[in-house]
């Protein structure tokens, strides 16, 4: 309790922070343009969206599950919002609320089915992914909504802090703090974690595990919709392909950030700021590799190698800290 500071050195977040700093140093010395204003601004915007996607997946991983339908939910929310703003002419704020509601609703469906059937959410969301996305393309006929209010789309291009930072990043960081507060300082957040860690024990301790799992899926849908809102302001239109076929383009950043950030795949342990740093690291690497001229076709290869090294490094860290704990 009294050793909070030295403990931080043993955490996953500290390791990530070191990696982020190291790579920042490497890239800023060995590439031109990494530290340019344009690049940093662009990075901040990509990071913002990846953080949000990572958080959205994280809250379902908390239950020991996965949400493959995340991208599909995001696109559905974005298209719904586009329809609200462009066709119905609903003002921005209510539209945003409706989009968030849409995301939560689709997440709720995932949650309900998962809880009621007791089937792994991987399978359930595999199915709903197709269904949500299918309905979306059917209803929109793949037509984009591009006449969105300017105020809305300008947000995605706005530049803050001497034009270095996108306001999108502020939204994501604020969301991180909100989630951190939720999981660390509220009864409901603690219950979500407990339910994910050991459903049987949590249930017998008076926690309604099913409800908690549904909340997690709803929260995932909510954050997915939030990510979609950020992406829509960034693209300037609500387009059906914004997350790729079936929304699957979101899945990789969605898995990478929490997994690198130290969220336990079996559930019950998460790290909000780890996820944030995970997203930062992955985006940084992609950006740096593009700048390094390794040959674009090899980028995926190097990204894979570095990811592998990152998780292995983390495992080594755990091994050594575990040892040192036993010794002390």
């Amino acid at each position, binding site marked *: 309790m009294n050793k909070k500071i030295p403990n931080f050195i043993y955490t996953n977040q500290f390791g990530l922070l070191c990696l982020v700093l190291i790579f920042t140093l490497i890239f800023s010395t060995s*590439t*031109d*343009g*990494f530290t*340019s204003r*344009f*690049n940093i601004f*662009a*990075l901040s915007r*990509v990071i913002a*969206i990846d953080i949000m996607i990572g958080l959205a997946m994280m809250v379902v991983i908390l239950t020991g599950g996965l949400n493959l339908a995340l991208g599909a939910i995001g696109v559905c929310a974005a298209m719904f919002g586009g329809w609200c703003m462009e066709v119905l002419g609903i003002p921005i704020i209510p539209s945003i609320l409706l989009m968030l509601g849409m995301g939560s609703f689709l997440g709720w469906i995932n949650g309900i089915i998962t809880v009621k059937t007791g089937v792994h959410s991987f399978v359930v969301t595999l199915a709903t992914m197709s269904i949500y996305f299918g309905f979306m*393309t059917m209803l929109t*006929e*793949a*037509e*984009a909504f*591009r006449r969105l209010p300017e105020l809305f*789309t300008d947000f*995605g*291009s706005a530049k803050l802090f001497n034009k270095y930072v996108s306001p999108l990043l502020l939204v994501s960081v604020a969301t991180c703090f909100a989630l951190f507060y939720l999981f660390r300082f509220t009864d409901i957040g603690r219950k979500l974690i407990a339910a994910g860690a050991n459903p049987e024990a949590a249930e017998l301790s008076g926690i309604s595990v099913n409800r908690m799992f549904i909340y997690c899926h709803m929260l995932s849908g909510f954050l997915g919709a939030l990510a979609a809102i950020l*992406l829509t302001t*960034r*693209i*300037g*239109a609500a*387009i*059906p*392909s*914004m997350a*790729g*076929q079936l929304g699957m*383009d979101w899945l990789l950043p969605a898995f990478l950030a929490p997994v690198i950030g130290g969220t336990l795949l079996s559930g019950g342990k998460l790290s909000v700021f780890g996820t944030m740093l995970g997203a930062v690291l992955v*985006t940084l690497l*992609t*950006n740096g590799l*593009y*700048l390094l001229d390794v040959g*674009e*076709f090899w*980028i*995926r290869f190097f*990204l894979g190698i570095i990811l592998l090294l990152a998780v292995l490094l983390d495992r080594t860290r755990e091994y050594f800290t575990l040892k040192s704990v036993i010794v002390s």
Partner: protein
Amino acid sequence: MKLLFSIVTSAAVLVSGSAFADSSDTKVALVPGGPHPYFAAWERAGQDAVKDFGLGKADYKVPAEWDLSQQNELIESLVGKGYNAVLVFPGDAVGTNKILGELDDAGIPTAALAGCVEQPTKAKMCFGTDTGHSAYLGTKQLIDAMGGKGKIAHFTGFLVDPNTTLRIKAVEKAVAEAGGGVEIIQVIADIDAYEPADEKINAFMAAQGGEVDGIVTTAWVPAVVAAQALTNMGDKRIKMVGIDHDEVVLTAIKDGFVHGTMLQNPYGQGYIGSYAMDKIRGGCTFKADAPWKATAQTDQFIDSGTVFVDSSDVDTYVDAMRGISLEILKTFEDDFLDC
């Protein structure tokens, strides 16, 4: 490879006697939508443009995946790296606009290459193929080959791609114009990966192969798979019009299993596109009264050449393309630019 080579040698003809000697600081990035064989010619086109027009750089830069966000990320990193002109195959006809606008704000000219972005846009031009029109022309050719009547199937790519909807509508339009004799009996979409395309197209052949008289394909993968399927079946009754220059399709045309294909001009796109970017960076602007063409997506369209090729000219289409490229280059400055 052969194809690329012949295009490259033809490029020498294009520039013989050209007067572009002084080196400029223009650094052009040619960014396709993702890894795809269609764009391979851009790499050489860029290199030749550097050589012939004295550009600082014209590099072919491929996003690691077919993914709008990846493409945006790449473009942003390229700008960070000092590229000051961007030619891009839009990852999304609408979604790519925002980044083009931002590049424009940063003083970086951009243009859509091979495919268009929808207006309003900050792209200086769309130099490429009018996807809808190409599908329309292809269908027209097919209907002619079928003798003006019969049943048509249409195989195309991802439904979420707005171009797919354009193509479906264009095919419908061509069919409607043919009067009552022609009918679309089936549209199969979402087959931009080989395995599902193989499964669905063959299932279609099995079920409707006897009824259908013509096939029009408006995406790369379905064209390859359908051409392969017809070749395997040994069927010369069904007429097919494909798209693009995959070797499978070209061979099938030579062997008579495919009627023809709608070819585009990737080398010319990269070559002339780089040239135009350099001009614009050098202070030229597009004329107000330039002879733009209008498409469903934009009215600042320059056709890079869409040619229908059948067995009669499949061996010589490279020359035809070269002719078109020469033609465009010759008059490009006079017709379109104010320098």
